């Protein structure tokens, strides 16, 4: 698989490590009243879809940025690559 990195262009997926579903960006608030439940779901449960999947990849053997890659889990086709930072800011999860 080739990941078209927004900053450094097309790179072999073997340069990256994979973390998982991009919903991991949406870490819940620990002050939440039912924090144990919300954290359980956040940490352990996954949609695991057959089809489009937004997921976190880390360019470990490269520029060390985190990316959100939109990929089809039935064909491995990658349709979108974003900097995780931009996604996090848009979701008000970072600055």
């Amino acid at each position, binding site marked *: 698989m080739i990941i078209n990195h927004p900053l450094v262009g097309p790179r072999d997926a073997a340069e990256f490590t994979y973390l998982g579903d991009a919903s991991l960006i949406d870490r819940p608030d620990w002050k939440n009243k039912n924090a144990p439940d919300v954290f359980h779901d956040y940490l*352990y449960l996954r949609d*695991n879809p057959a089809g489009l999947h937004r997921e976190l990849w880390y360019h470990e053997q490269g520029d060390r940025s985190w990316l959100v890659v939109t990929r089809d889990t039935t064909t491995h086709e990658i349709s979108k690559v974003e900097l995780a930072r931009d996604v996090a800011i848009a979701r008000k999860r970072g600055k």
Partner: protein
Amino acid sequence: MRYSAWKVFWEGLTGNKGWTPQWREPEPKPEYDVIIVGGGGHGLATAYYLAKEHGITNVAVVEKGWIGGGNVGRNTTIVRSNYMLPGNEPFYELSMKLWENLEQDFNYNAMISQRGILNLSHSDPQHDAYARRGNAMQLVDAGAVLLGKEEVRKMCPFLDFDNARFPIRGGIWQPRGGTVRHDAVAWGYARGADSRGVDILQNCEVNGFILENGVCKGVETSRGTIRAKKVAVAVAGNSGKVMAKADMRLPIESHVLQAFVSEGLKPLIPGVITFGAGHFYVSQSDKGGLVFGGDIDGYNTYAQRGNLPVVEDVCEGGMALIPMIGRARLLRAWGGIMDMSMDGSPFITKTHIDGLHFNGGWCYGGFKATPASGFCYAHLLARGEPHEVATEYRLDRFRRGAMIDEKGQGAQPNLH
């Protein structure tokens, strides 16, 4: 269909025209006592033990393709019971005991070959960890032998003992481990279940569940609605997709694992050997092919094929351990979809929906579990409570902080 030496002889003389199918191709009935979703090893074993151990025969196994076309026919056939944690080891040891008697039990040649599994260690700490695991195995009489370097050399003189980076320190050997003919396991269980009255419905995909007032009353399939008192899902790599039809999210991700077979060679590899420093394992089939594999590809996928970086990684592992393997040519490679769980351990459990049961999370190691998984799932379905060796395989173990994490990797399925 029953087999005997006489039958083989007779058919040989009469043109082999008298063989009949090993199981029926029935039409779905409107209702069953139990519907098992998924005709892999686990689903078929469950049906077999439901009929044989509990006398429950009004059962259907519903399979979207053909039985044995999933992971049960794609794995590298290794069976062993060399786990460490109390939630796991008694279960896998029960499985090993069932394997040891399986051919007599279902009267089918599954080519069960207990020629031993050797896990190599490459450092003192790793060797100590294996000693500890061996002790845990001895607690359930699984049998484990800690071997020093010279003992390993006697067994496998062809290993790269003085590898500059990962010299071999020793290993742990489970003499009862080995391999089993995977397709025959599916066929043997299917034939045994069918002959006791179980309907095996192939080319029948489950597209949804009938849920009435929070109770599961059957399934919607590509061959129509089939009602049931109990529904038991065992779809391995498709767990996420299927349970989503009941609006359930699981502690599971689907990943691809690849396997490789070389051209046929003379007898070479005595049992199963695993590299302790990289991810590589190998055995030799009766036809002579080296059967080997390594890591999962590492990203979510439902495509039953892997990518080249892992092919390279597996072959590098092979070269580091057995340099002569470089002379063998690769014949075939394929992939299967693994239900990788958050702690690397499986589930055999009820769900929050009455009547709906779930079996999954087998990761890359569910073939060895096939007999015990079917045995314990049948127990759960028939008695309504878990079998004593499968009490820890519940979906709520993460909420309770009772994970069974053999590798100690945490909630990162691609590292288990």
